[in-house]
């Protein structure tokens, strides 16, 4: 019997439930039993609309939030119930980049302190940490002479570079990036995308790349998972999911993205979904997508479809009773 090495990150049956806002109101199942793997050096894109649970998933993986059920394993070791103390050495390997670079950097700290902080926490000396901060600034394309400046002296794109440098300070193997470019100007987004791709090649990083922008995710990821109301509705190789989406929600999502091409916009067929995503406090029964689904039938209203492989051997799973292309 051969044993294969466990993936870098393995998430199984993960659920995160928040108490209802008022006493007696129903709990909110933000993440409702999801599972996926992230291999060393790869990028998994996690996409979906607001409230789908993608950010909650990311925050739970780095243990900024506590899971309600299920497991998060890192390098084969279940970390979902480790104490913060036991977690500390693992934090070196597991870092996070946030959406709003300015609000995720302490305005009173210098860049030196911001980037060096994770190293100091891990026991580095002040001199070593500062030296490493200079290296990191060069690595992410910042001018090392600016090391004693404060975050407000940097533009949004530069501030996001600081956030990335901080995440890389401890030489992590997995970076959870939660909407890392969506607060940036269009002309600056490409710089950060290119930077993240270069860092991945040079450092062998794995990314869990969380975003609502399907064009950006297609650009950066190897595999993609589409979430709807706390669940994964489709997951698989990027080429399959983008070229031949099997879940009606994935199809609608892709067809809703405006293309920067007027001729294509005029000729393309769009699937316009009705209504808004429902509240995770009161998810519809059966398949949670059925009230908005153009293909919904009786079974969809009563039975939640499991995530399953459509074609044996195909690297893609779909949770739909009536998937496309079958």
């Amino acid at each position, binding site marked *: 019997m051969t044993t294969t090495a466990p993936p870098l990150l393995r998430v199984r049956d993960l659920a995160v439930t928040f108490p209802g806002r008022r006493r007696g109101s129903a709990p909110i199942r933000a993440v409702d039993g999801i599972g996926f793997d992230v291999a060393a050096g790869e990028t998994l894109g996690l996409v979906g609309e607001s409230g789908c649970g993608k950010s909650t998933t990311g925050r739970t993986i780095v243990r900024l939030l506590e899971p309600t059920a299920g497991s998060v394993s890192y390098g084969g070791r279940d970390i979902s119930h480790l104490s913060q103390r036991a977690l500390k050495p693992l934090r070196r390997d597991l870092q996070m980049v946030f959406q709003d670079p300015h609000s995720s950097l302490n305005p009173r700290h210098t860049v030196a302190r911001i980037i060096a902080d994770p190293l100091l926490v891990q026991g580095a000396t002040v001199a070593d940490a500062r030296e490493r901060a200079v290296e990191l600034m060069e690595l992410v394309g910042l001018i090392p002479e600016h090391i004693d400046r404060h975050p407000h002296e940097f533009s949004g794109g530069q501030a996001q570079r600081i956030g990335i440098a901080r995440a890389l300070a401890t030489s992590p193997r997995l970076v959870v990036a939660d909407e890392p470019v969506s607060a940036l100007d269009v002309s600056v*987004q*490409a710089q950060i995308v290119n930077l993240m791709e270069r860092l991945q090649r040079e450092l062998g990083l794995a990314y869990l790349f969380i975003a609502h922008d399907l*064009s950006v995710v297609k650009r950066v990821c190897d595999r993609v998972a589409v979430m709807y109301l706390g669940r994964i509705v489709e997951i698989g190789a990027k080429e399959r999911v983008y070229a031949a989406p099997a879940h009606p929600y994935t199809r609608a999502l892709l067809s809703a993205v405006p293309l920067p091409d007027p001729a294509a916009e005029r000729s393309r067929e769009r699937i316009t979904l009705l209504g808004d995503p429902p509240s995770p406090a009161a998810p519809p029964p059966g398949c949670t997508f059925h009230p908005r689904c153009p293909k919904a039938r009786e079974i969809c209203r009563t039975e939640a479809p499991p995530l399953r492989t459509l074609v044996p051997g195909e690297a893609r799973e779909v949770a739909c009773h009536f998937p496309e292309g079958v």
Partner: protein
Amino acid sequence: MGAPAPLLSVRDLTVTFPTKRGPVRAVDSLAFDVLPGRTLGIVGESGSGKSVTSLAVMGLHTGAEIKGSVTLAGRELIGLSDRELNALRGRRMAMIFQDPLSSLHPYYTVGEQVAEHHRVHFGSRRAIARERAVEALAEVGIPEPRRRAGEYPHQFSGGMRQRVMIAMALVCEPDLLIADEPTTALDVTVQAQILELIARLQQERGLSVVMITHDLGVVARVAHDVLVMYGGRAAEHAPVDALFTSPAHPYTRGLLDSLPRLDDPDDAPLRAIPGGPPSLLEPAPGCAFAPRCPRAAVGSAEERGRCTSERPSLGGPDGHPAACHFPAYEGVAP
């Protein structure tokens, strides 16, 4: 004969804000027309002046110095009193914003707020205004409009709130709708609904629309003509197809090249524009885009000098002008 008279005409518009660190010219010598029944997309990044422009057209700037001319159906708006403007705002021209929740009053029902507009502008009686409000809510696709008119803004989703804003904007049947990033805060499936709604209302009512956005995809979907702004000035102005197929300004070209695209099979690195948007506090003497411009970078020393010292004016062929010393027009060596 000739083109129809523009509904909205902006000439030499300059908006200056006094700040502690000196005056900031947020919009500089801007000119454009919006024809009846057409959509003008204004595209730009943060600080480009696109939102300041829309607020200046609506006369909503307090404390800014506004120069130039803005005419709506031939009537000059700059210099009008608040009272005169109030009679036009909401009535002949209406505006919707990015965040509908902060534009709606939390203490009044949605129906009351829409009806209020009708009452103010037409002096209509309460019962009639309420009826018009329910009709407007129905028209923008709010299910059960009569019941929902009695609900408060917090009871509506983001997409439904934006529909309420559109109902409020349209209840007085304006000629011009200015939409400032109306779908930026919305999910992509809801964005598609709102863009479709605006397009339908435009068709049915012959509305003129100014769509302000940072999203070139949104522009490609809804606009007939596009104005690209950079550093408070017009960079390029063109019919939508010409802008996307043959952008003349290096900034427009750079924006299009830097976008990751759903329909692009190529996985080569994105061609990013270096640097960031310019500071309005210390504007460069030459072209605002020169420090980031690939065309300026490859030019001779003399050409570079021109880009960094001489501000280009909007020029070039009729119908597709660009503010660049070395624009890339087809058949013309840049």
